[in-house]
């Protein structure tokens, strides 16, 4: 009788990277639904375009690199990248925006650096920054939340608009777009307004930016589920949100007419999405628990700095990329003490 030989251990847990990534996708569902409800079909269409592009790009690259295609698709990492990028984009951006973004993410940020596990920068954020720098106009045009519209675009109208740029005759572009609260605040403060007068603007909601509070809640729900499923650990979301809250509170105390309240920061823009889904990308984050606290706290502070004094209304992509750059150094200095040393 002959038996199989193998090296120990001879057993392993059921955990699989593909399953974890799938869980990340599931956890996005509540946020995506709320987002679609508020900002229209464009959210889903963007997601679809991004996913198809990602699958094709990943498959072609793996073929070109003479690597097996199936495992690369089954690890779902390309889809996670695509979805996170698509959800960061305005849902009325033309079709080629998600395509270019995803191609930059998958081809440049991921595979040029050696593929999954070797990329120093968060691919979704690289894709976003490439778009932001190349197509600032398309990236800043956000739709107004549905409750403010007299006409919401149907599926076919949305598809036509995204692919041809043609709106129904009765609808004008500035009738469906609106500056986001972060954007509006930034411009008005520069003009010398104070926060008290701004807060009555349409773009403000009950806590943060109008509509975004609800979307953020959706992502929070999904993020908590990821924590519960142990797909992510608490370190990054807690340190990110904690440091952002802390810095925001500090400045709000110093001058509440100029610096927005801390909760406004949490409930506006992509903070919650980033804290649970983007900054937690393990490949580009610090790897040890202490390192992750430092890494994420750094993102929180940078987001605030960019929002308060930088050139962009939301600073998440830059903050994440800068801390990606710092992650190896953090890992170098914060190695855990080995047993017996």
């Amino acid at each position, binding site marked *: *009788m*002959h*038996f*199989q*030989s*193998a*090296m*120990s*251990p*001879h*057993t*392993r*847990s059921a*955990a*699989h*990277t*593909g*399953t*974890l990534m799938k869980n990340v996708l599931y956890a996005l569902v509540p946020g995506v639904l709320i987002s679609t409800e508020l900002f229209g079909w464009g959210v889903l269409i963007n997601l679809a375009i991004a996913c198809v592009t990602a699958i094709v790009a990943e498959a072609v690259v793996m073929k070109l690199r003479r690597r*097996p295609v199936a*495992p*690369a698709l089954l*690890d779902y*990492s390309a889809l996670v990248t695509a979805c996170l990028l698509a959800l960061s984009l305005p849902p009325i951006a033309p079709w080629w925006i998600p395509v270019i973004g995803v191609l930059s993410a998958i081809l440049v940020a991921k595979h040029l650096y050696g*593929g*999954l*596990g*070797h990329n120093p920068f968060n691919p979704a954020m690289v894709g976003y920054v490439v778009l932001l720098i190349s197509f600032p106009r398309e990236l800043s045009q956000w739709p107004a939340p549905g409750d403010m519209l007299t006409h919401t675009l149907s599926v076919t109208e949305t598809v036509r608009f995204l692919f041809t740029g043609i709106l129904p005759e009765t609808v004008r572009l500035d009738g469906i777009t609106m500056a986001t609260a972060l954007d509006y605040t930034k411009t008005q403060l520069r003009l010398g307004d104070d926060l008290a007068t701004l807060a009555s603007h349409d773009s403000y909601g009950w806590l943060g930016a109008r509509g975004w509070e609800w979307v953020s809640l959706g992502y929070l729900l999904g993020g908590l589920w990821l924590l519960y499923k*142990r*797909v*992510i*650990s608490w370190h990054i979301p807690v340190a990110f949100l904690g440091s952002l809250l802390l810095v925001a509170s500090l400045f709000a105390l110093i001058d509440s007419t100029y610096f927005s309240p801390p909760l406004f920061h949490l409930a506006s823009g992509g903070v919650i999405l980033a804290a649970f889904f983007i900054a*937690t990308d*393990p*490949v580009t*984050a610090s*790897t*040890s*628990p202490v390192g*992750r606290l430092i890494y994420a706290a750094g993102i929180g502070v940078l987001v605030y700095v960019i929002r308060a004094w930088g050139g962009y209304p939301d600073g998440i992509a830059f903050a994440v990329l800068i801390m990606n750059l710092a992650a190896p150094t953090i*890992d170098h200095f914060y*190695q*855990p*003490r*080995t*047993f*017996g*040393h």
Partner: protein
Amino acid sequence: MNFFRRRKSLNTQIAHDTAWSFHGGLVLPDHKALSKQHPLKKAALPPQLVIPLQQQAGGVNTPLVEVGDTVLKGQKIADSKNPVGAPIHAPSSGKIVAIDERTIPHPSGLPAACITLATDGKDTWADRAPIGNRYSELPAETLRQAIREGGIVGLGGAAFPTATKLTPTHPIDTLIINAIECEPYITCDDILTQHFANEIIRGIDILLRLLGAPHCIIGIEDNKPDAITSLQHALKAKPDDRIKLTVVPTRYPSGSEKQLIKLLTGREVPSGGLPANVGVVCQNIGTVYAIHQLVMQGNPLISRLVTITGEGVRNPANLEVLIGTPIHQLIEACGGYQENTGQLIMGGPMMGFTLEHDQLPIVKASNCILVTPKTPEIKQEIPCIRCGACEAVCPAQLQPQQLLWYSRSGEHEKAKKHNLFDCIECGCCDYVCPSHIPLVQHYRYTKSEIKTREQEMAAAEIAKQRFESKTKREEALAQEKEDRLAKKRQQLEKKTKEQHTDGGTKQDAIQAALARVKKKKDAQDAPKVTEPASEPATNPTDDTPTPQTAAERAAAAAKRRAEKKAQQSPATNPTDDAPAPKTAAERAAAAAKRRAEKKAQQSASTNPTDDALAPKTAAERAAAAAKRRAEKRQSSAHRGPS
């Protein structure tokens, strides 16, 4: 990300009384019920016992018997002169029928010297001289010597000679008894404790006296309520306030020595150090029982409890087995194999090693034979996503993901800096890795690479020193000879001068001779000769070296330069992976590989059960096996208190 919930103990009715813990670890499905459903049995006396000569770390045993000798049960049949060692005893009475190389249960699958004993069925004991109750009066050294003579080795896995462990380098205040048995499936320590708690308590008394230690802690996991009760009863029947029973939560690998010491005492054995450094000696509970049997009954270590278990066996059970009993016989005693068997493992699922067939003997270190069912296809390995799950569970507090990176890229120095050698190869990281990377395999390989390279560099250094001292010696000899010749010549010329006084002044002649000598010396000094001066002594006036010697010298010098360079280059360029074996180290490595391959090839061809299945060539497989063996040696050295 932290994929693993560190659940609270499953067994909440038993209170845990340890204040400390260690980092990481896993709560694994324990599968222990499987082998506990049938009572402990004695395995039948097999017709033949195959007893490997080497069953412990330390000194190599040589046989004390010859083919044809009849031996009695318990008679010493092999021993070594090395004080760190343990002799081998005949497990039953009978006749020695062979002393030859056979495959032994070892990760390498390679053969080693074994004594084959055909049993006579009578199981007649040799004369035994148990120490008995006198042990309390005997000096420690006598007890230690008895333990060595009794062939006692650690039964917790590393098979390190117990007498050596009981000769601590530091004062010991705590003896720790390892009854943890943290690997899934294995229950032999549990069953042993249930049956022999009183003997174990007595064994502890022997050890405490031997060590002069005031305290003993028995550490046991809370998934063994029956064994805990047995120990509590034994302690109630014979109260001993030096002995404390500490129940710890079930968490792999709390049975690993350093982690257990931390768990029970809060002390951390320094890296590279021994438990004695923190005043502790740690013994497996089975070892304690073996010591009891030796001291009280005079029985050397010739049998042990083995768990035969797994979904691939019909009636899993624990058996008392004579060392040397073939595994297939134990499987038969447990009802045979189930339909679809997968692997045959010696040890547990986390640390055990696979066996290719069951015609192998049980050795002192065998605690478990695990037969797994055929597993469905293994999910493919994908890249490391740096999720940190491995780091979260590593009991050595390492960063397995970084070690993987450095192992893969061959950055040995960095791997060492990240404390690769503190890895206990427990397999926790491997178990949780969601990318299914065989991490431990990488670490074993890199450890052995580093060790081999270091050994080769050490060997090269020795060779270099030897070469240099030889050269110096030879130069000194040449110089001596030279001086003698010069003296002789001087005397000779002086004499001639004196004889022909009319041919120039005495002074001139001496001057000329000195000049000649100097000239010659200069000529020789210039190329720094390595061989003794080779000019004929019969021609004292020939000052210039012959062209032949000059060429030789030049060649020698060139050779020396080349060799020196070769010896230095591996040091300055450790990552040089050039395919051609240019440097001395590389040449040596290549030679070692060739030798290993040759040897392995031979062994593979002599081993009829080695063929088939794996699509590799025999040489490849054997070379891999040799490597595995080297690795195993390392890992066990690591596990043991060497």
